[in-house]
């Protein structure tokens, strides 16, 4: 568990250093995800004993992904006044745009997949 957490933090650290160092518009943890894919490739390719237990911490975090958004979500409760001036426009915009985005994304995905002969 501790070893796998160290590997994850190491990947994030590498991602942050590269993203900030090169001024990339990609968040450090996303580059860290790419680094982690590299770690998993190494594990499957060479099976070093050090990387045998690299998954538990990540699996644990993903199983409780909802928990991690609670602190930011609580911030909304305390900051609802920023919405006050334009609340109706914002409420309609978020509702309409989120549903529209879901529909357009899923329909596009399916249309292209079907054209490629994927079920």
């Amino acid at each position, binding site marked *: 568990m501790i070893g796998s957490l160290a590997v*994850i*933090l190491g990947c*994030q650290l590498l*991602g942050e250093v590269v993203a900030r160092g090169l001024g990339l*518009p*990609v*968040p450090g*943890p*996303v580059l*860290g*995800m790419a*680094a*982690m*894919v590299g770690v998993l*490739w190494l594990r499957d390719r060479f099976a070093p004993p050090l990387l045998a237990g690299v998954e538990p911490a990540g*699996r644990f*975090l*993903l*199983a*409780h992904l*909802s*928990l*991690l*958004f*609670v*602190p*930011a*979500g*609580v*911030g*909304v*409760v*305390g*900051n609802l006044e*920023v*919405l006050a001036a*334009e609340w109706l*426009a*914002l409420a*309609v*915009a*978020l509702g*309409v*745009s*989120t*549903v*529209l*985005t*879901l*529909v*357009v*994304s*899923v329909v*596009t*995905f*399916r249309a*292209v*997949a079907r054209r*490629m002969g*994927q079920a």
Partner: protein
Amino acid sequence: MRQDFALWVYLTQGPLLWLTVTLAAYAVADWLSQRAGRHPVANPVLISVLLVGGLLVASGTEYATYFDGAQFIHFLLGPATVALALPLWEHRALVMRSAVPMLAALVAGSVVAAASAVAVVWAFGAPEGVLVAIAPKSVTAGVAMSITEAQGGDPALTAVLVILTGMIGALVVTPLMNGLGIRDYRARGFAVGLASHGIGTARAFQVDPVAGTFAGIAIGLNAVMTALIVPVLLGVLR
């Protein structure tokens, strides 16, 4: 009385109280969500936020005090993003096969996410600052705030809009996709990750591991895509 006060001072100065409250609220919310058979309305993020937010308001506690305790949980968002590599690697063959549909959905979805939100607030006659702040609302919070900041908008408003977008997406995605008759969990997951970032992805993992995998990919891709699109979109309007 003085004894009680000393205890209260101790609790408000350390992270222990609000860290415990956050974990306990989530434990209750997750239990309720399980009891409700993972019904979309019984969303664990929403329930936890209402429980903790209600306690903060009732006790007159500042958000900054709360965050001193909750920051340890908030910090784990970064490592969790890295951990998305695990399902990605596990399903890599399926992901590679889906590259073309994903890229098509990314371009279409990313443009619609930003343009439709901006168009609605513009139709309501909202000021330019609001147009800027809502444009990156489907992107993961940190990136969305930096996009808004670069365009001269208010990142605090963007942060609130991002979280609300996540919750709306997590609540509507299951009934919407079922209504559309979509059974392809790659497509369903990718759509909710693109529209509603990590909160939508958390919902996707509740429903199906493949959906969660594709939602996680969409978060990263849409962050980059929206960073490219928003300056162009706002440039057209200005």
